């Protein structure tokens, strides 16, 4: 609820009655603290409900209309992104530990720079993709597409990232099939909530635009998950050749199974000597 109290420097203004009438919030100046308080007007159970709603795609229920109900918040997106950043960094670090502990040359390092990288990645995704989508929808409004407010778009995207938090933690289990299955399930659930949210908006704009927008939303969301998995986590051993010291010291695990085999190093590592 909006707190009704003494406003600063506005004598003789009927702020009390204007707020009670019609249940509408009086738009506040961008520079006051109260402007931002409106974005944090949620209770604990509301946040929990929204998180649950972001992983349960129900065909009739649009996340924005059904859950947000004209009360988008920034608490959820901000803290879900923060939790995801640290979940990725900590889990990724632990996955390196469990995978490489057997190797005698391994020396544990906290890889703290991963936190900075994860933070940049997640927060950019959570702000720039909604911005682009919102801008695109506003531009297409003249062609019949609807639009949500920027805050509602950011809110949907922020809450949809909550599916990746338990996924990141469960990726510690060193079974490749399970990791990809978890990724698929999480991406499917949260991307379908996103798709269901934006589908009604672009439906009126024509088949091509609808498909393009929904495809872009789903693929970006999945791409984020795949990118995080490959970059931050040590891939569990599959049917690949014996790892060389080259692989254990370099941080780019994404190239682990696809690294170009340099002829010179391979020959010397496998014990055969080059003919002089």
């Amino acid at each position, binding site marked *: 609820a909006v*707190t009704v109290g003494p406003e600063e420097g506005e004598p003789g203004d009927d702020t009390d009655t204007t707020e009670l009438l019609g249940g509408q919030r009086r738009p506040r100046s961008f520079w006051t603290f109260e402007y931002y308080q409106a974005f*944090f007007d949620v*209770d*604990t159970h509301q*946040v929990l409900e929204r998180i649950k709603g972001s992983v349960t795609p129900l065909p009739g229920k649009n996340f924005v209309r059904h859950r947000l109900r004209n009360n988008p918040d920034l*608490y959820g997106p901000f803290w879900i992104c*923060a939790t995801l950043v*640290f979940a990725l960094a900590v889990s990724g670090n632990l996955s390196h530990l469990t995978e490489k502990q057997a190797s005698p040359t391994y020396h*544990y390092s*906290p890889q703290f720079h991963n936190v900075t990288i994860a933070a940049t990645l997640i927060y950019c995704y959570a702000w720039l993709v909604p911005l682009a989508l919102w801008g695109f929808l506003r531009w297409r409004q003249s062609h019949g597409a609807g639009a949500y407010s920027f805050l509602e778009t950011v809110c949907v995207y922020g809450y949809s990232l909550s599916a990746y938090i338990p996924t990141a933690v469960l990726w510690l289990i060193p079974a490749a099939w399970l990791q990809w299955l978890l990724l698929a399930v999480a991406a499917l659930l949260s991307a379908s909530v996103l798709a269901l949210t934006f589908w009604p908006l672009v439906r009126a704009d024509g088949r091509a635009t609808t498909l393009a927008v929904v495809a872009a939303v789903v693929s970006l969301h999945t791409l984020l998950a795949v990118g995080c998995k490959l970059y931050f986590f040590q891939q569990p051993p599959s049917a690949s050749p014996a790892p060389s010291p080259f692989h254990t010291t370099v941080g780019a695990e994404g190239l682990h199974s696809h690294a170009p085999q340099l002829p010179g190093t391979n020959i010397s590592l496998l014990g055969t000597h080059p003919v002089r």
Partner: protein
Amino acid sequence: MRDLKAVGKKFVHVMYPKKSSALLRDWDLWGPLVLCVSLALMLQGGSADSKDDGGPQFAEVFVIIWFGAVVITLNSKLLGGTISFFQSLCVLGYCVLPLTVAMLVCRLVLLAGSGTVSFIIRLIVVVAMFGWSTLASTAFLADSQPPNRKALVVYPIFLFYFVISWMILTFTPQ
């Protein structure tokens, strides 16, 4: 001398937390500064294979603690908390004390060796101090929050001390 006594009194309050409005009223940031600097200094000298594969740098620790405390304070004020900005910073900063003690203990234990036993000891100490920090800060801050949003305010505090505990636990000497 009076300031030193005030800082010392607050340290005692953190170790034995009980609700005290006097503590909240006379906030100061000396204690948090001292704790932050000593924690950041003790986290130096960690190992690294390459320069950017190691633990947090001094500046990173500093930024995490201060930026984290500011963000949590803003968060609690935006959610409708009645505590003042600097009072909240003061409480969050002082409650880093148990974790600084944990860091000290960890460094001493690591001097003795860095095997599994030392890791288990360090884990127990860090987890205990993490719990202590979180409970101490919530004891001071919980009352100033609206009742149906307490969990929303406590969770970021939990995350904040968790990150600091993680930095302490993963510290490996050269």
